[in-house]
Every structure is written in structure tokens, then in C-alpha cells.
């Protein structure tokens, strides 16, 4: 009954590296989709790609009256789309998903399917005044520059992502798009180590960052009994400027997977929250509670589908999400995988017996 907990080793880290280095802005998830398909096909009973590009993977369990359990991780990342060609390799762009404009200037980017390098430049400090430097650079003033002569390979409509390469820093990992390639990597690992007493419905979703759109139709199609969303949530655990207690940390690095009681999109089903906490305590896995409020995960769309789906989210904490360079702790990822694996092993239909 108790299958061995999957471990994060060099293989999983290499896969995460491939995933975070891939470029897949909302609506353009092809690069990640092909990695996912390559990884899950040998382990799945059914694999389907739906109209929006979600990859829906089914692994059937054995036995009667099986629970249908959906797990969702989104393949898309926030990024940019080129909107106007201004000649000479210079393009206007717009954001896709939530991006703080202050994080864009002076960055190296990768553009289009061929990952053409480009930069978002800024006026030299010598040519700006102190007054000007007090203003945030607006979308209207920023441009992507792929260099003169490159326009043939780059066109309006192409997406762009940060050019940050994956790097290991001891017990931490540094890359772009941990939100939500970590969830994708974790879900792939669970598909490879599935429970045998329930139906595992793994949804690698699209367009989470632009409105939880893939998860909505995926949940409608899969029609599960309950759902877990696997995501990445901000760890704002830096010191306050005045040394006062940081009361809005959201989550902390190193404190384990973050369980959601409520965020901006979902009030988690309390039965599932209790179950996860008990599972963690029994298995000796550290966990933390994400501060309620704000944000959203695929659970926000899933729980409102059809006649309602009891749902909860579990996230790996990450610093500087939605910027060029994010940071996570290896141990938090390992513990998230361990908790989810243990939860799937321990899940039975009794979990929904009592009323919400």
C-alpha cells in the first residue's frame, strides 16, 4: 500500500532545468507541452490535448468506486508579446499576465520560437535627469531591441520571455518561471509514481496567468470528485525597511509546502485542508499555511465547474516570482512532492463523506 516516496535527484533537477529554460508564455505553451508529452506518454493510460492545448493525462486505478482526483499544474509563464514593428529591430510590446513594469528595464529577453536574443534597454543615466529617474518607465516608453538586421526572424505576435538560465546555488535553485514549472515537474513525477487505488487525472493546463482559462475547460472535461492545484506562491520573507516585524510575508522559504486556506480565487474545501495537515503531521513532513487573501490558482476555476469540485491548492514558496530571476529551496520542493505523494496514497472516498 505505501509506495516509496519519490525523491528529487539529478534526473528531476535536469528535467526542471529543461522546463524553466523553455519559453511558454500564456497562449503559446508548445515548448513545455512537448516536454510534458515526452515525459508522461510512457506512464499514462490516456493522453489528450484539448482545444486550448491542455494536456489531460489519465492513469486508472484498480478497484470499485474509485475516486477521480484531478491535479492541475500550469504550463504557461508570464511574459510579453511584440505588438508593433518600428523598424531597425525595435518593437513595441505588451505584457501577458501580471508583470511589474519596474522589473523589465535593462533585461535580456528571448524572442519567438527560435529564442532570438533581444534587450529591453534604457536611456543612459548620463542623458536623464534626477526628476525623470523618479518616474516609473511606462509601457509606452519601453521597447524590445533585437538588433538591426534581425527583423526577418522576429515579427509582431511573437512572445518574449526573460533570458534567465537555470542555475543551482547549493540548497537553492535559481531560474525564471518556477511559477509554475515546479508544479509541472512535480506533477510529472506523480504521474510516474501514481497511486493504484484511485483515478489520477493530471491536467497540465494552459493560460492560468491570463485568467485560469485552461483549468476551467479541463475540469469540465475531466469532471473529477476533487482537485488539487499545484502552483508556486510568493515568499515575501525579506526584512522590512525599518526592522519591524514582517507581517505580510505570504510564505517563507524553507518552511515547506504552503497550504491554502483561502486566496483571491478560492476558499479551499476545509475537509481537504484538514486532510493535508493530518497527512503531513503523520508523515513528519513540514508545511506552512499561506497567508489568506490575494492571488489565485487553477483551483479558482476548477472548484466552480459543473456542480462544484472540492478543491485545495499546494504551492512551493518562491521569491521574486513573475520577475526575471526567481529563487526556491530544494527542500521545499522535495517536501511538496512528498506531501502530495503521501496525500494521494492516503486518499479515500470517506474524505467527502461529511458535509463541507
Amino acid at each position: 500500500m505505501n509506495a516509496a516516496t519519490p525523491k528529487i535527484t539529478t534526473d528531476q533537477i535536469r528535467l526542471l532545468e529543461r522546463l524553466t529554460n523553455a519559453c511558454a508564455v500564456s497562449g503559446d505553451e508548445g515548448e513545455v507541452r512537448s516536454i510534458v508529452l515526452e515525459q508522461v506518454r510512457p506512464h499514462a493510460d490516456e493522453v489528450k490535448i484539448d482545444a486550448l492545448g491542455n494536456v489531460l493525462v489519465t492513469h486508472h486505478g484498480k478497484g470499485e468506486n474509485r475516486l477521480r482526483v484531478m491535479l492541475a499544474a500550469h504550463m504557461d509563464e508570464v511574459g510579453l508579446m511584440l505588438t508593433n514593428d518600428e523598424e531597425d529591430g525595435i518593437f513595441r510590446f505588451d505584457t501577458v499576465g501580471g508583470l511589474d513594469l519596474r522589473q523589465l528595464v535593462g533585461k535580456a529577453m528571448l524572442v519567438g520560437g527560435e529564442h532570438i536574443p533581444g534587450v529591453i534597454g534604457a536611456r543612459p543615466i548620463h542623458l536623464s535627469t534626477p526628476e525623470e529617474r523618479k518616474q516609473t518607465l511606462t509601457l509606452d516608453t519601453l521597447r524590445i531591441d533585437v538588433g538591426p538586421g534581425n527583423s526577418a526572424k522576429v515579427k509582431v505576435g511573437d512572445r518574449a520571455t526573460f533570458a534567465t538560465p537555470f542555475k543551482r546555488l547549493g540548497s537553492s535553485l535559481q531560474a525564471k518561471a518556477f511559477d509554475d514549472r515546479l508544479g509541472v515537474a512535480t506533477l510529472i513525477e506523480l504521474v510516474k509514481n501514481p497511486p493504484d487505488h484511485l483515478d489520477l487525472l493530471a491536467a497540465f493546463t494552459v493560460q492560468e496567468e491570463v485568467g485560469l482559462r485552461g483549468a476551467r475547460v479541463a475540469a469540465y472535461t475531466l469532471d473529477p470528485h476533487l482537485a488539487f492545484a499545484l502552483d508556486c506562491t510568493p515568499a515575501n520573507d525579506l526584512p522590512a525597511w525599518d526592522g519591524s516585524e514582517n507581517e505580510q510575508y505570504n510564505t517563507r522559504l524553507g518552511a515547506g509546502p504552503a497550504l491554502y486556506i483561502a486566496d483571491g480565487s478560492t476558499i479551499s474545501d476545509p475537509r481537504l485542508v484538514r486532510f493535508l495537515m493530518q497527512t503531513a503531521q503523520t508523515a513528519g513532513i513540514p508545511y506552512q499555511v499561506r497567508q489568506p487573501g490575494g492571488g489565485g490558482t487553477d483551483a479558482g476555476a476548477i472548484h466552480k465547474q459543473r456542480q462544484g469540485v472540492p478543491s485545495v491548492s499546494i504551492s512551493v514558496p518562491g521569491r521574486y516570482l513573475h520577475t526575471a530571476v526567481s529563487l526556491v529551496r530544494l527542500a521545499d520542493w522535495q517536501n511538496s512532492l512528498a506531501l502530495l505523494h503521501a496525500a494521494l496514497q492516503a486518499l479515500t472516498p470517506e474524505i467527502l463523506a461529511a458535509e463541507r
Partner: protein
Amino acid sequence: MKALIQKLVETFSPSGFESPIRQIVRTEIEQIADEIQVDALGNLIARIGPRGEGQHSQGTRQKIMLAAHMDEIGVIVTHIDDNGFARFTTLGGVQPRNLSGGRVRFLNGAAGVIGIERLEKVTELPTIQQMFIDLGGSERKSCPVQVGDVAAFERPFAELGSRLIAKSMDDRIGVAVLIEAMRQLKHTPHDLYFVFSVQEEVGLRGATTAAFGIDPDLGLAVDVTGTGDTPKSIKMEVGLGKGPAIKVRDEGMLSDPRVVDWMVKTAEKAKIPYQLEILERGTTDARMIQISRAGVPSGCLSIPCRYIHSPSEMVDYQDVLHAVQLLVQLLSQPVKIG
């Protein structure tokens, strides 16, 4: 009906945590309904099938969904500091200006008072982040609540002439109207689904799934609406004491004109006073019922209410009684829309 209203408004059940109010509602209706079920999100759904005279009229049987939300706005703890003060965020549309000095009651029974940090300018409005709950303790480890615990506002029911005042009139008054209509309904040709919905205040979530599950022919929400009859208020024709309001539109939807017409004609025929409502800010469960599946002709029966989302929401008792009367009239008779 006042005792019922008091019992409902003095229960603590913010969005997402409706178990206490669901228990009370269930006790009130379990003898009346033909069938009761609780769905995956916690909606309480009571069905009353055709009954009494006219129940066998051919071709008039419609599946009608009524919805009044059981949840109220509230707060949820985000942090307990070293001295035992609780920081919080909101569940639903809680306005900072309604909080100072307010009292809250947690689901585990603990009570607290809302305090505010010192502001740079005394005339400024504080943000939620500048507020905290004082539970009477002095250190974190003896604080009776923890991160994730939820509370609703505490303010007892009161009467002022024919006005009734309490927190959570939005929408316990709608819940009361549905319960009372269920009690008074002697005959109907329809399949009626009385939905006591959850999580309306955080995005009409319960009504979304309930409507999908029921797949009705017609939908009617019962909720509060604002008024334009207080000093220098928003311009609005609706006022207390002039009858229940028939919603023409609000910020989130346009009522089906055929439903508005049906409601107006029924009220006029039965000589029940009514008002026509246009609400610029705010919406109801009807919005999600209307766009469920292939679409549902929908409307809303509104109870005029002053000071919505404050701890002292005020309705007029006569409006409430007339709302029940109108609802019973609407549900007793044949109707065919769309």
C-alpha cells in the same frame, strides 16, 4: 417572522464557512421540503414539487430556481503578532470605513475589537493593512485564534418602528423571505428549487454550481438592494417602505425583460406595492444563474436596504412581508417564459 429573522441575522457564517447558518436553515425547512440536499460547495438545496390545486395543469410545470445567499461578509486572520494582535484580510466587500471600533465574533466563539494604527493624517481612511483585531490578550501563544480563522461582525438585531436593523440583512433577509414563502406556499404547478447559496459575497460562486446542477427553466434571486432615500445619497428611485423592488438591472446583469414583465403584472394583479430597481454598484446570484449552461431567463426580487455592508443594515418589515406575498403569488401560478 421577526423571530426567524433575528435567529438568522445573529448567526455567524462568513463566505466559505456556512456550516452554522446551514444548520439553522435546514432545521427551519426540513419539515416543509420534499427533498433536501447539500452540494459539493455547501449550497443547501430544497425542492418543493407540484402540490395543491392546479398541480396537474398540463404544460405549465416549470423548473424554477430561487436563490438567497446564506453567507455574509467577514474577515480572516492573516497573522498573529508577538503581542497577540491579529492582522486580517477581508472575505467579500468589507469597507474600511465601516470597521473602526467594530466588534467581531469568530466561529470558534472568540470575540475581538477592531483597532487602527496611528495614521499620518487623522482625516485619511485607513487601509485594511493598517487595522488589527484585539482579542484581549497580550502575547501570541495565548491568542485564541490562529492564521486562517474567520469572523463576522457582531451587532444584535434591533427594531425601530417598522424598520429592522442588524448586520447580515444582506442576505439573511432573503433567506428569511424564502423560508417564509416555503411555509406559506399552499399550491404550485412547478418544481421549485429553493437554493440557500454559499460564497455569494466572494464572487457568486455557490449560485454558479447550484444553477448548473439544477438546470432550471427560470431563475430568481432574492437579495437586498440599495436605496436613494437617505441624506445626499446616490441617486436611486428605490426607498424603504415603498414595497419590494423588481430588479431591472444592476452592475452585473440585465434582468430578462419577460421576467420583469411577469413580476410587474403579478404584483399589479395582486395589488402588492412594488418598485422598479436600477442598481449602479453591486450584483447578485442572478448574474450567474442567467449565463448557466444554455442560458436561463432570470431576474431578482430585491429587499430595499439602507447601509449595506455596514454592521447596521436596515430594512422595512412591511417590504419584507410584501416580498413574501409577491413571491408566493409568483410561484403559485403558471408561467411560461422562453
